[in-house]
């Protein structure tokens, strides 16, 4: 019902965005996000209800570690009521502190599944360390089930194979990766690694680095640190050797 209300409010076909917004309304969480996942490529963020969710999404994309990554790989819900606990820091030594810095204290990831098929993950975060009780867990799983069905029902237009309602997809990250293949003279995989490494090394958001690359404010050159053009607003003065 909550999901339906959200869709009606938007005046559009029900979509994963509505599941996320409904989940935030119904559960003791600050934000939610859904990503489509596949075994062979990086995840595709589909929606986030707020900036913290978007950042958590991006961190996991940049670092390749985190609750969403584990939930998808293991096929089970990953519940982390306290990101600052020792076990969690052991598990995700880079993600955990970065996530708390972004404003999350607890994260819960639910794989979207029908049998052996897993098209994605539903991520929830809270800004205080907190558990989900049994009722909340059941609700969260129901939201995950709904998201799974909606995701699989996503309309795909032929012949270009264009996916409708992609929501949170950011083309710049992929465009920037393509640009880097030329600037660095490397394959697409390495280009993506280099882009992510730069974001991580400079403590910047992947989407922002990508935007700079696409806007030609930031250029990469083979075997050197990236250069910025003189008129860039952000200062890249801290060259690392």
């Amino acid at each position, binding site marked *: 019902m909550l999901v339906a209300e959200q869709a*009606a409010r938007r005046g559009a076909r*029900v979509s994963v965005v509505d599941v996320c917004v409904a989940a935030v309304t119904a559960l003791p969480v600050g934000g939610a996000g859904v990503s489509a996942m596949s075994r062979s490529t990086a995840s595709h963020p589909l929606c986030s209800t707020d900036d913290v969710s978007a950042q958590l999404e991006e961190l996991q994309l940049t670092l390749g570690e985190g609750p969403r990554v584990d939930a998808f790989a293991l096929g089970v819900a990953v519940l982390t009521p306290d990101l600052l606990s020792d076990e969690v820091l052991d598990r995700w030594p880079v993600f955990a502190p970065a996530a708390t810095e972004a404003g999350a204290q607890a994260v819960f990831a639910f794989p979207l599944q029908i049998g052996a098929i897993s098209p994605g993950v539903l991520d929830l975060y809270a800004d205080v360390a907190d558990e989900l009780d049994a009722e909340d867990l059941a609700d969260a799983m129901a939201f995950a089930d709904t998201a799974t069905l909606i995701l699989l029902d996503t*309309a795909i237009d032929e012949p270009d194979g264009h*996916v409708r309602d992609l929501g949170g997809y950011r*083309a710049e990250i992929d465009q920037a990766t393509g640009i880097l293949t030329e600037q660095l003279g490397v394959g697409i995989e390495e280009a993506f690694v280099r882009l992510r490494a730069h974001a991580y090394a400079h403590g910047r958001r992947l989407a922002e680095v990508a935007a700079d690359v696409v806007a030609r404010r930031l250029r990469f050159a083979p075997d050197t640190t990236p250069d910025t053009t003189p008129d860039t607003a952000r200062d890249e003065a801290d060259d690392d050797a």
Partner: protein
Amino acid sequence: MLDVSAAGVLLANRDGELRVMAASDERVRLLELFQLQNDEGPCLQCFHHGTAVAVPDLSTVAHRWPRFVAEARRSGFEAVQALPMRLRDEVVGALNLFRARPGPFDPVGTPVAQALADVATISLLQQRSTVRSSVLNEQLQTALNSRVLIEQAKGKLAERHDIDMEQAFTALRGYARSHNRRLSDLARAFIDGTEPLTDLVFRTH
């Protein structure tokens, strides 16, 4: 929430005939059956045209659906709404909402009811086979990956020839069409270096 006395869900079978899948009580069930048999009523109209049909006062449409209106009012209903149940672009059935008293339908309630119908459709079709889910998942993965490939190819082409993303996309799409190739296949080949894109044409705009 929604001001409804009774509801019924009808889905089309393989021959395109509506069958009652669920009803909130027996009276409504009888009505649905009635509608089908007589081939009249807002629900059938909704299904055939794929658009919502609202009848705020059944007494005003007795001339249009005489037997349906008579039976509905005898069962205690004075207003009806029929909402299409859609799966992607196909109308697979209809959600019928009945109300005991006449009067206009809440403009806020209708989109909610339609969204409910959409969610109900998806949930009902959870009965689909694992094979179909697997096929749908494949399609989704392929579509998402295609998007990624195309954006990556745009970036690579834009950088190589010092053009913007829009020009790059236009050039790629034009090349794909004139060489009769799928855009995503062309993009993949360009990215992994097996497609040199000779005779590529750029337009300045």
